[in-house]
């Protein structure tokens, strides 16, 4: 089960790291123009940049989950995976945010993708944590 969840982590890491960069408003050709004529990316772009970091961490967690054998390591990895999932949810909702217009692509695709992937990452972490605890009880 833990190995399967390791694979799930890797898939989610790819989604979290890649999808936002192609679904933010900048990728759709939308940006803010200041009075001086400078083009500034909107909030959703910085959420996409931050998500790449979360994706890398979650990907590493997935690889280590596939390679690990010790229950202590699984529990630590599940903790990091859970925090990464929470960050994936927090970036578009609380920490950075996305554009205010609900019709913007970032609101329709980027934000839901990050929230869904974050929830699934937290769920996968909980499964790994539960499975590693159960194995400890059997061993003990």
């Amino acid at each position, binding site marked *: 089960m833990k190995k399967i969840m390791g694979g799930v982590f890797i898939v989610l890491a790819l989604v979290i790291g890649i999808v936002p960069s192609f679904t933010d408003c900048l990728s759709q050709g939308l940006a803010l123009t200041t009075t001086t004529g400078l083009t500034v990316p909107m909030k959703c772009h910085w959420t996409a940049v931050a998500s790449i970091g979360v994706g890398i961490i979650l990907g590493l967690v997935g690889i280590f989950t596939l390679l690990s054998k010790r229950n202590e390591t699984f529990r630590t990895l599940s903790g990091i995976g859970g925090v990464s999932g929470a960050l994936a949810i927090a970036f578009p909702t609380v920490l950075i945010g996305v554009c205010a217009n609900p*019709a913007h692509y970032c609101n*329709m695709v980027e*934000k839901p993708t990050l*929230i*869904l992937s974050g*929830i699934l990452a937290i769920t996968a972490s909980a499964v790994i944590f539960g499975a590693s605890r159960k194995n400890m009880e059997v061993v003990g």
Partner: protein
Amino acid sequence: MNLFQLALKNISGNTFRSFVVALCALLLAAFALFTTLLLRGAENSLRLAIDRLGADIVVVPEGTEAKVEGALLMGVPTKVWMPQDVVKKIATIPGVEVASPQLYLATLTGASCCSVSNMFMIAYDPQTDFTITPWLMQKMGKGLRLGEVVGGSYIFPSEGYQNIKVYGYLVTLKANLEPTGTGLDQTLFMTFSTAQDVSSKSTTQALAPLEIPSNSISSVMVKVLPGSDLHAVSAQIMQTVPGVTPIESANMFQSYRKQMTGLLKTILVVMGIAWGLSIVLIGLVFSMAANERRKELGVLRALGATRRFIFQSLLAEASLMAIIGAAAGIFIAGLAIFLFRNFIMVSLGIPFLLPSAGVFTLWVGAGLLLALFSVNLAALLPAIKISRQDPAVAMRE
């Protein structure tokens, strides 16, 4: 060890096999719930939109039915015109209780003088209106004054602003209507006088003026007298008023209904194939597992387990995997449709509204039952076969 514990032990004993069966149940339940939510949500949305319009018959200029339906359903602005005297002609037709005109307008695209680009706007006559005014009277106790507007559930002023800019004219949003999942949620409602005021001031305040052709309207909302024959009134409108098309409320959004029927047929075929393949795959996995565990089950029989116990333990194992898989599938499908509802609406071009909690619970139950039934059906044959084998033969092999 009871039946449940044995089933749990068998599930954790072969993780990959259990994962495959649970994955099939997951996909089956998720697909079933997703499509049901989508189609029922669209139907629910259409019904609500018709209720919101509140008209028994909508009269539009001849040949513009699809444009008007598209505007009301998907919020795609349209400009259609017919002479204003049509209202008087319709109002005098026997069986017509009220005939109220409306103007269909739109904000400019990508212009700084409009807060929202290409937004659909409906102007109504407060003297005869029966769609927005009763709701306003109930909610605010008064109608809209000059410069005041009502918006669909998606209409709100930009961050840091209190008003919405329309053709350089600042209108005050007084209230928001309940969501319908259609274009009405992205529509701004105002009175004729506000629309005319915006139009007259737009010549100096906007990048391009709001043009309302004189003595023209876009549609007429008709309410018939209780007990009147809707078809007869429609036919009378067709005969009496040339150049218009009456659309009865039951026939509203016909093109979208046809589109949804086509979608439903395709989904049913795909679902049927997916269901059949899942059952075959689960049956195959269970057959392989039953053959693998021939010796183990033979020992159980030799230790005193009855055929019935073996049969029940295999079905309990199947049921547990079905419930776990289906629960995960329903969770993912429900979450996905909730989060991606706007994207689905835009990409599929259909209206959508989430169901009430009660209806949703009913569908979740139906999804679980479908997965439970399918997995048990697939596991039935291998379970019968293995429970009937002779323990001595099984242990010798």
